[in-house]
């Protein structure tokens, strides 16, 4: 039996706006799950439904086997870090962390023990006497974290907790959050629109778009085995390149024909292509790092703009009117150089109409 189950959870506003469609998910104890997607995709709404801050229009949510949809937030045993941290400004840091424990009617000694414990974990011991207005954003965020783990929740919910931090702090806090998750051995759900965050933190990622789950999988699966074109486009920095190609058959061989190149295809999808896609147009998805610059290649093009990234360069080219990006360690290349490129075997094929993966 899984730890947290969402069964066909649906959220509709005002009788006609569907924020979340038929959401199905099973989470095991101890997992770190990320809800990933662009603004408005329904990830925060789903999180809030789990917390009890939004009602569920249809479907069920079960925690440790028991349905929680009709319980108040405080009865669910979850804790939450809000995007704005929601650290209460009129209370000291100590009181912020202690509030929930006071409500639980623990005695002063117990409360103090727990507060000191979590303060150490979240590294805020020196701020316990201060007030939120005296703290920086990053420090307030850690207070929110301390407050959340103090209650030893069954489920640890985080709503874009890093979005309001500056870039450097964000990366540093990422690691801290993962460490805390492991130390406290909690089950966590982390909402973000930043795909790098999700990839680096999560055991599994739920990618959402327009209220619908696009794919659930490990970071590896999401990245290399994307289920939909949306995911290939959304994940990865820079995102995947798309080529519109026609499937042609010649002597039982499959050729993917583009205005600029022809590629003989031998991947596992060959059967499916032979059976269903001959003569049709499909989308060939190639990630920038899977494009190699060599002395010979199937495409000849010019390096237009080069963006040095330190460990590699991003080379922008234009192929048949489309912008194509290449990740390369060929540092000697200059803008305007003529280059030859090849694709390696890590390419994905997508159906042009459904935008789903062809397997």
């Amino acid at each position, binding site marked *: 039996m899984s730890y947290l189950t969402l069964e066909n959870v649906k959220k509709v506003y005002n009788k006609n706006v569907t924020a979340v469609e038929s959401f199905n998910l099973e989470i095991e104890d101890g997992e770190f799950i990320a809800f990933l997607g662009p603004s408005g995709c329904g990830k925060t709404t789903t999180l809030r439904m789990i917390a009890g801050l939004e009602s569920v229009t249809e479907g069920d949510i079960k925690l440790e086997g028991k349905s929680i949809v009709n319980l108040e937030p405080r009865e669910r045993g979850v804790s939450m870090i*809000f*995007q704005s941290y*929601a650290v209460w400004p009129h209370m000291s840091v100590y009181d912020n962390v202690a509030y929930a424990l006071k409500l639980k009617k623990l005695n002063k000694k117990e409360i103090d023990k727990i507060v000191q414990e979590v303060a150490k974990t979240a590294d805020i011991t020196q701020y316990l006497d201060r007030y939120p207005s005296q703290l920086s954003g990053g420090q307030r965020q850690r207070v929110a974290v301390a407050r959340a783990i103090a209650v030893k929740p069954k489920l640890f919910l985080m709503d874009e907790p890093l979005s309001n931090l500056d870039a450097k702090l964000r990366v540093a806090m990422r690691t801290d959050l993962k460490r805390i998750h492991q130390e406290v051995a909690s089950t966590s759900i982390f909402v973000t629109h930043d795909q790098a965050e999700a990839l680096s933190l999560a055991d599994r990622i739920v990618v959402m778009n327009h209220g619908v789950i696009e794919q659930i999988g490990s970071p590896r699966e999401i990245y290399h085995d994307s289920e939909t074109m949306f995911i290939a486009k959304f994940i990865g920095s820079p995102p995947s390149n798309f080529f519109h190609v026609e499937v042609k058959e010649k002597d039982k061989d499959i050729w993917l024909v583009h205005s600029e190149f022809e590629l003989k295809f031998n991947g596992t999808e060959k059967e499916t292509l032979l059976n269903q896609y001959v003569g049709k147009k499909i989308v060939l998805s190639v990630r920038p790092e899977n494009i190699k610059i060599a002395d010979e290649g199937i495409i000849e093009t010019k390096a237009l703009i080069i963006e040095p990234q330190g460990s590699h360069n991003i080379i922008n080219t234009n192929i048949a009117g489309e912008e194509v990006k290449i990740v390369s360690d060929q540092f000697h290349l200059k803008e305007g150089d003529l280059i030859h490129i090849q694709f390696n075997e890590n390419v994905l094929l997508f159906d042009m109409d459904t935008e789903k993966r062809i397997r």
Partner: protein
Amino acid sequence: MADTQMADKSKKNRLKSPYLLLLPALLFYLIFWFFPVLTSITESFTSNTGEIGLTNFQLMREDTLFLAALRNTLVFAGVSLILQFILALIVAVLINRKFKGNKLFLFIMLIPMALPQSAVGILWNTGLVESGWINSFLTTTGIQEVIQGLNLASGAMIWKNVSGLEAVFMLILIDTWTVMPSVMIIILAGLQNFNKEYQEAAQVFGATKFQAFRDIVIPIIKPSIVTALLLRLISGLQVWLIGVMIFGFNSVPFLVERIVYYTDKVRTGVNSYKLANAYSIFTLVIVFSVALIFVRMTKNKKRGGV
């Protein structure tokens, strides 16, 4: 070179102009407020024969209605403050909930505040007379019968037949009807500008809706509430017009009612001007002290805990 010149120029402009812009206001207040106030203060300490002293205040103490006026004023201000706060809080919370027609409800609740005082006087006078609309309402709705049936009264009530503290309480009710919206508005503004996540966080961490309201919402919007109440307190201590419109002068005295009485009604009395001034300064002292006490009481015990 040109850049620094422009920067210097704008800096100069910046420094000079604020004082220029403030000058009209300063002059205005100097002439039309400060000097009259000063005059009033000095007059209050100058007796009729020209000597400086407290004779005027002595006269004031000897006024038969002085103690009643003081008592009525303090009771009125204190009780109406509490009543108005509680009602305003309830109504503000109600309006803040999302429901159809809450804009209309808000408009209706704002109406009493917008009414001119004299119109309010007419409104309640026509209501409080024996054949007025209050008794009409009770009769038409049958409540009158119930009252008589329960032997609470033997006939239509003569509302105006009250005096002393009873009359003050009647005025408190009428004043609350008029004034509660102004407190409500400020509380409502605080609630609407309130970050909902503070309350949600409390609910996630174990608080019931009531606990979240008590521990989180109220303390955070406290500053605006305190301001609203302080203004109301000051206005409450200066009550007079509503009392005069319903009961006339002298029957239900208030401090400021005495001031108006001696200024306007008894112009011919030799001491009346002096009395008016003495009452003015006395009222000022009362208002100032009460305000100070109130601010002290409501100050956060230097950021106390939950």
